[in-house]
């Protein structure tokens, strides 16, 4: 998946449905995740999550339990093993338990939802995550977000002038910087963040998911989750984190529109901020550049090229096939701060080329 070891490529968008779901559910910090399947499904994901956490300076250990199915469980049915593993999870006194399925248990037809439905003191929530059904990482993310949302207090609560960040990519490098950029932009409109859904939450926090005035989806692919939350909790949504210079201003406008706030002043301030940021890159103005795919094995983000052309325009860069080769960013940087970080890399490449 990532043959380029750069930390920028440590995001993980394709892959197993189960991994996608766990990237969300392990952020409910007082929950335990039960993975109903062979031990390897858990071990593999444990390693991946733990390694990614360590790379982001987080020392906590993902709270995963496996039902450790063996051949006999497959032949005779794995529901008893699941029951025992849920009991083991409950003995750790979690505030909630998420039960994730795997390919083999969906194949033999174990009824995970029925086992979870038994009455218990804490919520035990099934999350369908069998990868062979055609889903990818994103499918797991979506299923997990909807599963966690089932813990929110139903519609009717008072909305406050605040926003939820929905479906942050917890495994991507820079997830917290991206969130900080959204916080900065929202503060221009006087809007605070209600919940990062789901990052660093407790089960009880989820209760107030419905009190935000707007949900901000990490990316448009999460629209089914946006629709689901709108239906459940009556919260409208903005379908993506902002990308590009004008995209960032459009984001402010859209959030303002959804929340009934006039964004004119905020946009003016942000444009001035962008001009100031761009001025710091005067030294590479007029340079010759060309954009190329981030990696030969890799399909780039479709929006990346347009976003980069916008930035090249603003810096008076000249597009020339013999110019400095600049890889298209993947993922597309978030907001003005993301562009600043991207331009810092461009500068390094342009200077390297000049030295040649």
């Amino acid at each position, binding site marked *: 998946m990532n043959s380029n070891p750069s930390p920028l490529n440590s995001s993980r968008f394709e892959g197993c449905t189960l991994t996608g779901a766990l990237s969300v559910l392990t952020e409910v910090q007082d929950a335990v995740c039960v993975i109903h399947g062979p031990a390897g499904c858990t071990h593999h994901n444990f390693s991946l999550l733990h390694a990614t956490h360590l790379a982001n300076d987080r020392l906590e250990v993902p709270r995963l339990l496996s039902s450790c199915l063996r051949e006999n469980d497959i032949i005779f049915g794995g529901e008893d093993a699941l029951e025992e593993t849920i009991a083991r999870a409950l003995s750790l006194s979690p505030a909630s338990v998420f039960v994730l399925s795997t390919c083999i248990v969906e194949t033999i037809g*174990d009824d995970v939802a029925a086992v979870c439905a038994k009455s218990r003191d804490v919520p035990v929530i099934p999350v369908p995550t069998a990868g062979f059904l055609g889903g990818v990482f994103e499918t797991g993310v979506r299923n997990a977000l909807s599963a966690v949302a089932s813990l929110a207090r139903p519609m009717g609560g008072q909305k406050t002038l605040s926003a939820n960040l929905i479906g942050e990519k917890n495994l991507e490098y820079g997830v917290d910087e991206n969130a900080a950029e959204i916080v900065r932009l929202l503060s221009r409109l006087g809007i605070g963040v209600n919940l990062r859904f789901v990052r660093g939450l407790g089960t009880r926090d989820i209760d107030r998911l419905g009190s935000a005035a707007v949900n901000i989806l990490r990316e448009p692919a999460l629209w089914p989750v946006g629709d689901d939350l709108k239906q459940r909790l009556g919260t409208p949504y903005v379908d993506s984190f902002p990308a590009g210079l004008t995209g960032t201003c459009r984001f402010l406008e859209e959030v303002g529109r959804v929340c009934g706030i006039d964004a004119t002043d905020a946009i003016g301030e942000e444009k001035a901020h962008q001009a100031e940021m761009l001025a710091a890159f005067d030294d590479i103005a007029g340079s010759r550049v060309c954009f190329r795919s981030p990696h030969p094995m890799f399909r780039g983000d479709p929006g990346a090229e347009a976003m980069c052309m916008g930035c090249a325009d603003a810096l008076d860069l000249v597009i020339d096939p013999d110019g400095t080769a600049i890889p298209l960013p993947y993922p597309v940087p978030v907001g003005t701060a993301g562009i600043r970080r991207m331009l810092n890399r461009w500068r390094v490449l342009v200077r390297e080329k000049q030295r040649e």
Partner: protein
Amino acid sequence: MKQIALYGKGGIGKSTTAANLSAALAGEGLDILQIGCDPKHDSTRMLMHGTWIPTVLDLIRERGDENITVADVVYEGFCGVRCVEAGGPEPGIGCAGRGIIATFQLLERLDALKGDVIVYDVLGDVVCGGFAMPMREGYAQEIYLVTSGELMSIYAANNIAKAIARLSRRVRSRCTLGGVICNAKNIEGEREFVEEFARRINSRRIAYIPRSRIVQVAELQKQTVIEYAPESDQAAAYQELARTVYGNETTSIPTPLDMDELESFALEFVQV
């Protein structure tokens, strides 16, 4: 060692045919192993005089597969026929197909698959890869389709022919179709219908077992016909089947019919 498997629609009389076939072969002085590959585990019951023998999968479930011996899974029945039942999970849970695979692996490890003839009696339809296990390399080389002249039974037989054709394409496969056994339901034109079906799938009808009340009577006595009424015409039919199967050296790769062919073929005969 000859290894054969009987396949056919559920309720068509596979187990009755298999048990009588095994009994008749044993009557010829041959060493026979019959393996029931159906979670209902009733294949060998008449050979065992009504006793339900412990199934391989029950034993695996109770003891794990480390502590099982040949004596735990192989039971001697009528005329020395050795009987094994694979068994399966409780209805409605787990994976019976994987159970068949596990059973075969255990029998291999115990070196239990031996004798002059091994008869595999397999669940009605080849619903998944597990139930095609007896057709795989190293097991049955000859498959016999058991069918009556009822369309649903022919339809099932045609489906099984598809599985045989598929598996026989594999490089090291030795699985072929030995023939079609007509287990009669007393339908008019049945013998010809089955005979023509066999011909059209590139095989032949190798036996005709007439419908007889004596089969039910013997079953009520928990015996095969061979044991209960050895002098009867019905016993003679099974004995003839046994001789034909044992001496059969003509097998084929079947050419199953597609649905349209099968239906128009059936119409030709039903209208007669």
